[in-house]
C-alpha cells in the first residue's frame, strides 16, 4: 500500500527503492514472527498470545493511525499521549450512563482537543510542534483535574466488559484497530480528502495555489488524530478498568517511531497507512519476543533492553530511509 503524490511509475529504480522502504518493515515483521514461532513454538503461536498481543497493540495502533495522517500533512501531534489519558478518564466518568455514552464521550473529548490544536495551528498559524507540546502539558493537567489527581476507576459493568469481549478470537480493540486502518487506507487512497492531505504535505503553497482548502483539511487531520487518541484512551480504560495518572505518557514518541518505521516521511507528502500498522506491530512484537525469551529461562534480558532495541531499530530504519530519499532525489534530478 504505497502512496506518493507524484506519478513515479515511469522511474523503475525509484519504485523499487520506495518498495524496499515500505516493505522493509513488513519483511522484518514476517521474519520476526517466523523466528518467534520456530523458537518459542506453541506458546508463541497460540490464540491467547495473539489475542493479548493484538488487544494491547490496538491502543498504540489507533494513536499511530492519527499520527500518520498528521505527519503526512507535514505536521506533528505531540499531545496524543495526554489525550489518551483524557479520553480514558472522560469515558470512565461517563460510563455510568452506559458503554456507548462512555465510548462516544471519550472519543469526543479527544476530538475536542484535536480541534483546539487544529484551530491554533490553522487560525493563529503557530508551529504544530509547539502547539501540541503546550496541549500535551495542558491536557494532562485537565485529565488529572477531572480524575481528582487519583487514578480514575471504572464501575464494573458493560464498560469493563468492552475490554474482555472478543470476536473470532480477537478482542474488540483489535477489530477496531483493523477496521480503522482499513478505512484509513481507503480514505487516503480513494477520497479527495486523502489526496488533499498528501498534497498539503508535499507542498503547502502549491496546494493553496491550486485552491485546496488547506486550513480546513489541516484542521480535520488534527481532529482525527485527537479522536483516535481519545478512542485509544477508551480502550485503555476498559481493558485496565482504570486510568492512572501516568497513562499514555510517552505514547506520542512511540507513535512517531511506528510511523517512521512504517516508512512515512516526516517531511510530509509521502506516506502509507497500512505501513504504520506494520510499524506498530513490529515495535510491539519486539517487546513480546523479549517476554518470551525471558520465559525460556536461558538468559534474562531486562525490560530495559526493550527501549535500547527499539531505539536501535529506529536508528537502522532512519538511516535506510535517508539513503533511499537521497537516491530518490538523485533519480529525480537525472529524470
Amino acid at each position, binding site marked *: 500500500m504505497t502512496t506518493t503524490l507524484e506519478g513515479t511509475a515511469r522511474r523503475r529504480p525509484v519504485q523499487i527503492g520506495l518498495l524496499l522502504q515500505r516493505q522493509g518493515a513488513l519483511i522484518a515483521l514476517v521474519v520476526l514472527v517466523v523466528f518467534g514461532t520456530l523458537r518459542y513454538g506453541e506458546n508463541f503461536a497460540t490464540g491467547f498470545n495473539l489475542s493479548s498481543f493484538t488487544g494491547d497493540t490496538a491502543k498504540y495502533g489507533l494513536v499511530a493511525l492519527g499520527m500518520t495522517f498528521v505527519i503526512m500533512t507535514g505536521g*506533528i501531534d505531540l499531545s496524543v499521549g495526554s489525550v489518551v489519558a483524557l479520553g480514558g478518564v472522560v469515558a470512565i466518568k461517563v460510563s455510568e450512563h452506559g458503554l456507548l455514552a462512555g465510548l462516544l464521550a471519550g472519543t469526543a473529548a479527544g476530538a475536542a482537543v484535536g480541534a483546539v490544536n487544529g484551530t*491554533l495551528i490553522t487560525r*493563529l*498559524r*503557530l*508551529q504544530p*510542534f*509547539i*502547539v501540541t*507540546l*503546550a*496541549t*500535551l*502539558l*495542558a*491536557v*494532562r*493537567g*485537565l485529565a*488529572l*483535574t477531572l480524575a481528582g*489527581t487519583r487514578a480514575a476507576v471504572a464501575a464494573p459493568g458493560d464498560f469493563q466488559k468492552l475490554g474482555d469481549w472478543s470476536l473470532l478470537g480477537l478482542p474488540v480493540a483489535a477489530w477496531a484497530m483493523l477496521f480503522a486502518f482499513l478505512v484509513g487506507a481507503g480514505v487516503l487512497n480513494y477520497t479527495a480528502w486523502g489526496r488533499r492531505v498528501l498534497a498539503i504535505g508535499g507542498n503547502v503553497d502549491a496546494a493553496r495555489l491550486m485552491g485546496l482548502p488547506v486550513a480546513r483539511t489541516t484542521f480535520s487531520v488534527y481532529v482525527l488524530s485527537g479522536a483516535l487518541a481519545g478512542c485509544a484512551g477508551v480502550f485503555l480504560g476498559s481493558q485496565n478498568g482504570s486510568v492512572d495518572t501516568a497513562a499514555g505518557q510517552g505514547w506520542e*514518541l512511540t507513535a*512517531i*517511531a511506528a510511523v*517512521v518505521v512504517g516508512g512515512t516521511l*516526516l*517531511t510530509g507528502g509521502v506516506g502509507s497507512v497500512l505501513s504504520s500498522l506494520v510499524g506498530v506491530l513490529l515495535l510491539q512484537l519486539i517487546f513480546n519476543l523479549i517476554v518470551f525469551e525471558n520465559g525460556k529461562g536461558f538468559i534474562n534480558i*531486562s525490560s*530495559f*533492553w*526493550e*527501549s*535500547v532495541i*527499539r*531505539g*536501535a531499530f*529506529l*536508528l537502522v530504519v*532512519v*538511516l535506510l530511509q*535517508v539513503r533511499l530519499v*537521497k537516491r530518490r532525489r538523485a533519480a529525480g534530478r537525472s529524470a
Partner: protein
Amino acid sequence: MTERRAADSHPADPGATTPDPVGQRVAEPAADATAPAPPGGGPRVQWSLWAQRYGALAALVVLFVYNAVATPYFLTPQSLLFILLRQAAPIAIVAVGMAIVIGTGGIDLSVGSVMAIAGQVGASLVLHDQPFLLAIVAALLVSALCGAFNGTLVARFGVQPIIATLILFIAGRGIAQLITNGELQPLSNPDFQWIGLARPFGVPAQVIIAVVVAVVAWLVMRLTVFGRYVLAVGGNETAARLAGVPAARVKLLAYVTSGVLAGLVGLIAVSATSASDANNTGVGMELDAIAAVAVAGTPLTGGRVTVWGAVVGAVMLKLLQNTLITHGVPKEVAQIIEGAVIVAALWLQRQETRA
C-alpha cells in the same frame, strides 16, 4: 536579552533580505528599515515587538512583584536562592544548550535521557571508588559522545533533528537503566556532590554554574565565529554553506554542546538528590527546556539565539509554577495555565513575524 539574527552577523547571507526592524539597534525607531509600516501601524508593531522581545522578562517582573507583595517570606534569600533559582538552574542550563541547537534550526529531544546516562556514569564511578574528578570528566565525555551521536545523524546523514534525537531519547533511558539495572544508588560523596549541594558564598552551586554557563554561552554567541556560524546556518543553511560556513561541523558542535550541558545537569541532579535514579532523572526535561526557549520568543525555525531569553524563560516558568502552587492552585491546573502561557507567547511571536 541579546539577540542577533543571521542577517546582522553574516554579511554574505541572503537572509539579509528579511527585514529585521530591531536587531541590535533597539534604540532606533522600529519600522525604519525596509518594511514600510502602514500609517498608524507603527505603535502596534512596536508594541508587539516589545511584547515578543521582553514579554517573558515582563512576565517575570510582574510575577516577582506580585509574589513580593502577596507571598509571605518570598523576599528572603532562602526562598529566592534556595527554592526558585535552585529549581530553575538545571532547566536554565539545559535551555541554553537547547537554544543553541534551536538556533541552528534543530531540536534536541534527548536531553533528559542524556541527563540520566551522565548521572548514572558519574555516580557509578564514584561508588566504585574512582576519584570524583574522573567520574565527572567521564560523565561529561559520555554526554559529549551522546551529543556527537545526535549531531552526526543530523549533520552528516541529514536525519531530521526530531527523529535523530528521538532515537537517543528512547534508547538513552534504557542505556542509563542498564548501567545499574534500574536500581537506585544512594550517594554520599561530598566532593562529587559539590555541584549539587555546596553553597559557596551562601549561593547554591548550581545557581553559580548556571550563571557561568549563561555568561560563557552569551559571550561565545556574541564574540566567536562559532556563534555567528550558528546564526548563519539556522538563518539559511544553503546560503551559509555557499558562503563557506562549515555547516555540518557547526551543527555537530551545537549538539555536542547541548549534550555536555545536559550531562552537567544530570550530575547536578544526582548530586542534589544524593541518589542516582535512572528511571526518573531528567524525565520531561526536554519539554521544560523547549518551553523555556519558546516563551522567550526564540523562533523554533532557527537563525536566532537568545541565551538570556532562555534563562529568563526558565526562571519565569518556574516562578509561574511556584506562584500558582503556593497560592493553592492544584498542580494539575497549574499545568493547564502553563500550557496556555506557552501558546500566548507563541502568538506574540507570530505577531512579530507578520509585522
